[in-house]
């Protein structure tokens, strides 16, 4: 291990650590195979009577979790590595989701309730023509681009102005939460032109494929799972680079970093923007699977929940974020069905217990027991 890593350093002067160790690559590839090959096979090849068969609804739920895991990795990249706790990650997620939702909305065409070429809610609001900012969303690829660019731009601007004036730590958390709240109010308005209270829903097709069909659902799941793995590698690639080292320096001792010649603002803005774009991508993959996006997704509570996914799994590990997202959401799915009145107690206790007793999360507990 030791030898191979020093070997890596030697070969690439920009990378202080390998993106993944050999064992890591092995684990990663097997996980990728399980997620993207084994699960679909278990779903499609086995008869429905089999205990191992994964039903369609479960595949969709797994796809949803993969999107959450992506958002959690983005959160970890920002919080675990740069030490910036943004309580507005849900905004970027929702913006990505809205961008994709707009394309899905337009691809309904005239088969909506009102048989109009306009989306139903616009007919309802008595609009005659498509608002200008809806027009480019006719194109699927523009929607994908917007799902990355809109959150990215917003994060860049918000981050630049905040970090530049040295708003950091809890102040940044609070301000980002307030901005989230304000944006939620904005999206609740009918005048914003994004469906108001009801949001966007009743999607029929994506890129010409029916959203009702089994194959589309499985394909979306595979995309989400692959996306999650891809995002993980991307995040590893960033955090193992020199930039990643600078980010960690900022996290641990922000006041000293400028003296080593690095511009703190640039690095933080970079991490924030990247994390926002990943969240946007996650949202874009999320919306066709759940079939609805409304302003409820922008609630400040959702953004804070993303922080707890990361904290439960273990901050500053990337794997931890993904793991936490899966575990917390699996628990949520189960409890809200079986013991709905207990879920808030569990979630609340989770917040308290993780911060008090397991500040390094599940990964931290395992790492300690191994050592």
């Amino acid at each position, binding site marked *: 291990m030791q030898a191979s890593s020093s070997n890596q350093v030697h070969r690439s002067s920009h990378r202080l650590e390998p993106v993944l160790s050999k064992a890591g690559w092995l684990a990663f590839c097997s996980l990728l195979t399980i997620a993207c090959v084994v699960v679909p096979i278990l779903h499609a090849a086995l008869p429905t009577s089999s205990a191992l068969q994964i039903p369609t609804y479960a595949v969709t739920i797994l796809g949803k979790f993969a999107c959450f895991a992506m958002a959690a990795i983005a959160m970890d990249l920002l919080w675990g590595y740069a030490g910036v706790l943004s309580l507005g990650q849900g905004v970027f997620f929702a913006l990505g989701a809205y961008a994709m939702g707009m394309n899905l909305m337009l691809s309904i065409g005239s088969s909506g309730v009102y048989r109009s070429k306009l989306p139903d809610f616009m007919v309802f609001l008595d609009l005659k023509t498509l608002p200008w900012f809806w027009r480019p969303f006719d194109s699927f690829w523009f929607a994908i681009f917007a799902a990355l660019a809109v959150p990215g731009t917003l994060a860049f601007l918000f981050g630049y102005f905040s970090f530049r004036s040295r708003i950091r730590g809890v102040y940044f*958390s609070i301000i980002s939460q307030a901005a989230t709240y304000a944006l939620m109010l904005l999206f609740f308005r009918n005048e914003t032109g994004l469906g108001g209270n009801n949001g966007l829903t009743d999607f029929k097709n994506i890129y010409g494929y029916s959203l009702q069909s089994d194959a589309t659902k499985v394909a979306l799941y595979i995309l989400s799972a692959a996306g999650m793995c891809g995002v993980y590698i991307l995040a590893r690639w960033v955090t193992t680079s020199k930039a990643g080292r600078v980010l960690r320096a900022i996290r641990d001792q922000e006041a000293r970093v400028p003296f080593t010649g690095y511009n703190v603002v640039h690095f933080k803005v970079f991490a924030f923007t990247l994390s926002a774009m990943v969240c946007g991508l996650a949202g874009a993959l999320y919306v066709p699977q759940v079939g609805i996006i409304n302003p409820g997704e922008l609630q400040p509570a959702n953004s804070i929940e993303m922080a707890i996914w990361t904290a439960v799994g273990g901050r500053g590990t990337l794997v931890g974020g993904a793991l936490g997202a899966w575990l917390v959401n699996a628990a949520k799915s189960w409890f809200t069905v079986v013991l709905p009145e207990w879920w808030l107690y569990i979630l609340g206790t989770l917040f308290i217990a993780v911060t008090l007793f397991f500040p390094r999360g599940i990964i931290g507990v395992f790492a300690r027991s191994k050592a």
Partner: protein
Amino acid sequence: MVGCVFSTATHAALADTWAADVLALGASDVNEQVRAVNRIARRGGTEAIALLEALNDTSLQIDSTGAAYRKRSSGGVVPIGPHSPMPPKPPIMAPVIDNELRRALEMTLATLRLTSPDSRVRRRAAEEIARQPNDSLAPVVRQMLVSERDVHVRRALALSLAWVDVESLDPSVRIKALLAIADSPGTAFKPAVERILSQTEHRKPVEVDAQVRAAASKALSAIRWLETWTNLLSNLFYGLSLGSVLLLISLGLTITFGLMRVINMAHGELLMIGAYATYVVQQLFLKYLPNHSDWYLVAAVPAAFFAAAIVGTIVERLVLRFLHGRPLETLLATWGVSLVLIQVVRQLFGAQNVTVANPAWLSGGIELFAGFVLTFNRAAVILFSLAVVSFVWFVLSRTNLGLQVRAVTQNRDMAASMGIATHRVDGWTFAMGAGVAGLGGVALSQLGNVGPELGQGYIIDAFMVVVLGGVGNLAGTFAGAMGLGIATKWAEPVVGAVLGKIVILVLIILFIQRRPQGLFALKGRAVEV
């Protein structure tokens, strides 16, 4: 008083005809009712006015002996005049009034009140008549104006005539009417005055007489001036009352966030607990002291303070004590606490909102002048918030605990080495911050709905105030809250409530660009923590 002596002297005879007249008010024949109204009016006096007023607003109740009572909106009856013994003897009837009777009644009542020897009664009657156009009363008013001496009554009477006279064919009457309007302007006259100043399709003035037009523009500018002031005052009042609410919700946070560096996301839930404590006290009063239920609010103030302080102490002991100097962790942990508290309240009181009623002495308001009502509950919130601020200021700057709190805030280690038990001070400080949040909850319960999610809506505003005002600074919080309140009320009519919120937020972020430490920066080494 004279009437009273007189009535006891010839009690039986008078009471007979009085009772007979009152009973006749309940007759099914309108003509008989009108005759009874006229007989009662001829009798005159405050008792007759009270009786006819009650008849006019359909709150009159007559018992079987002909005694009259007024039904209160809150339930129960009050006797009218000395001939009505309590309780009324059933069967009780409420006279029915139709339009014919109402017209007769209006006229009679107006005459009766305008001839009252008491100038205050006359003035009130005249002002009421002047509030809306009333052609049928104009002759009566004109007649009264001849003999009236009191300047205020005269002014109100002239104003009530102005409704009719602006349409008069005689230009000099129109001018007089417009000058009366200019003399005591009201927004209700605006359409009529603007009509006079408007132009026809051919760009010709509607009003041909230049002198009338001059009088009309004088009246219009007086109305506009009044409108400006009304807007200004009501914006200021609503801004101050919103600012007071913001102050109450953020004051506790200034203490816990500012002084202890604890990001208490459960602060909103402490507000909620204060509001629910108010609800519980109200229910206890309704059950055990129903006759004094209006005073539950007074008892709710200490109850809410201690309820929130106790919950706060528990949270501090069990959670926050272990997270010292790790503000981001306190943020997450207290968010967890808030989720638990919401669910506890939901299970104890249900997910639905509960009703917390304004006590009678807080409902309603006084109309300071046309279009501007000073509501008592908002005025009370302003006073209450000032009282709470004074209390907090007193504790922090004039007590031993406050001295220790400030010492710990400035330099924890140094304070500890001077012999201050920092942990104990933390406990007391947090309890006080939580208790003050509970007081905020009392105020919120009087202004809006009380439900388990009450606190969630306020937490972000509270943090904004603290960030804007400068952390841990009472004066800053005060200025921040009031400034934010007034700015919001100014922005709302211009850009709408939601955009207003966004605009204010953007302004706060821009403001922090210029002054990262808030309005009032702490000086010294403690700043760069």
